[in-house]
């Protein structure tokens, strides 16, 4: 009995240490990000940095607003494509599909997440971009639309898997009750299952959104990367992540560009953090308590 307790307390402390370590790492990274981005603000004011429309480092102009808008637009359009697809897929898998179909469909959706993003990017570059160019007769084909389609495909599995979990966790009494009252299957899905699993579905969507904002490689390869606010979905855009990767590669340490990239990273971090907070809030607000 005594021996067991020693082992237990050792393990407990080990786990405590692990938890502590990961919070320390996150905290240290945020501090590093903040301190590494401070020097750029001696060249450009924080306001001009975030809301400046012109990015020309050669002329000491460091505005990243077009990139912030770019990230936002690409993500929103990606969600327009992926929410119906992802949630529809989840409803079908959880409620309608026969066991056999489920067994084929579920792994094939999950495998979509295992494909490296550079592969999505390359396929987008050699197939999707020329297709957009030909079908819509626009130049250059590298566009907001292309980036959103690729991103949309990439986040469908995230949304599907999480929504399916949410739907499956709706107690079967609710569903059976509804069916017993004479509701059709479709009425049950629409009026009972979807509202009951809404908070889970929404957190899935927001998690997918976070992934879309943070995705770099695939977007970089198909977005065309104009540092301008797009005026149509056929214009190229440059999201924050692409902006960082385009500039950080050969930026000499100590140069304003180098610090500007850390500041861009900080902006991105704040955006993702607020998304997470929103998701927690939504989760609480729309959580329906049963039993």
């Amino acid at each position: 009995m005594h021996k067991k307790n020693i082992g237990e307390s050792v393990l407990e402390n080990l786990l405590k240490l692990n938890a502590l370590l990961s919070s320390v790492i996150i905290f240290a990274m945020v501090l590093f990000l903040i301190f590494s981005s401070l020097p750029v603000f001696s060249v450009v004011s924080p306001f001009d940095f975030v809301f400046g429309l012109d990015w020309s480092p050669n002329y000491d102009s460091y505005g990243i607003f077009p990139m912030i808008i770019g990230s936002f637009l690409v993500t929103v359009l990606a969600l327009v494509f992926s929410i119906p697809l992802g949630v529809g897929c989840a409803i079908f898998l959880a409620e309608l599909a026969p066991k056999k179909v489920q067994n084929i469909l579920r792994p094939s959706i999950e495998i979509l997440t295992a494909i490296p993003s550079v592969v999505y990017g390359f396929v987008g570059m050699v197939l999707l971009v020329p297709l957009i160019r030909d079908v819509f007769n626009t130049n250059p084909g590298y566009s907001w639309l292309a980036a959103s389609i690729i991103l949309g495909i990439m986040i469908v599995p995230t949304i599907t898997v999480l929504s399916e979990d949410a739907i499956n966790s709706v107690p079967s009494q609710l569903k059976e009750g509804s069916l017993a009252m004479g509701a059709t299957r479709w009425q049950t899905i629409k009026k009972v299952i979807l509202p009951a699993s809404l908070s889970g579905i929404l957190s899935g969507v927001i998690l997918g959104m976070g992934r879309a904002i943070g995705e770099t490689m695939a977007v970089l390869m198909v977005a065309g990367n104009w540092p301008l606010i797009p005026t149509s979905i056929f214009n190229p855009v440059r999201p924050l992540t692409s902006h960082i990767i385009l500039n950080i590669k050969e930026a000499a340490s100590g140069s304003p560009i180098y610090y500007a990239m850390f500041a861009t990273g900080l902006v991105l971090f704040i955006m993702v953090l607020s998304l997470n907070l929103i998701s927690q809030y939504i989760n609480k607000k729309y959580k329906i308590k049963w039993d």
Partner: protein
Amino acid sequence: MKKYISVLIGAVFISLIVGFSGCMDSTNGSNDVEEIQQVNLKISGSTTVLPIAEEAAKQFMMANKNYMIEVTGGGSGLGVKESGENLNDIGMASREIKSSELDTYPELIAYGIAKDGVAIIVHPENPVSSLTQEQIIAIYSGKITNWNEVGGDDAPITVYTRDEESGTREVFFEKALNKGNITKQAVVVASNGAMKSSVKADVNGIGYLSIGYLDSSVKGCEYEGVIPTEANVVAGTYKVSRTLNVITNGEPSAEAKAFIDFLLSSEGQQIVVEEGYISVN
């Protein structure tokens, strides 16, 4: 609980074994080379120079068993920076050292080990095959937006460029554009390879890349009447060219100098040619 403890003990046991075998290996290793001094060289920087340095390091280490040369990429800017801060023994840069960099690190010395040209490329089906500097500047600044203004079909021009910090862009910007403005409405791609596949897939595209990457899938345009070939770069008639450099901070150590001498020797220059670049001799 018991299960966890035994797993824990098992893990400790295994790590001890691994740890000890590591120790034994290293003692054996040091016994073998006791008479000769082990030399470690770290080389980092431009990915354009990388293939030359990697192959040269391989051959040099085979000839000199006491050398341990580590070669990594990271880009020209990184190569210069790490040389200046003594984080590597030899830096690599696909461009000259900038004056701003020399201000920070005044001791840097560059050795030209190879030459490379930057070719202006269009789609093979494009009737345009020759452009003047003036036309290039007008196209890249966004003044000319249709191919018919430079003798081609009536079609909009898609301008492709590289990221702001690319060494290839730097050469193109200085030599071909004479530091002229590059329009913001240019599609930015991240590498020589991405540039080639983009122009290959776009009938209306124009871009630029290292001559080493040029093949029949895209058309290298005449610039000021000169075809972008290695021979023309060597002869000095093709102006959009650059020297690939290795860099040391101050005079190199005897060991680093031995490797740089190897790069400049006929064997080293043979490697340069085999990797698709142009010998400095």
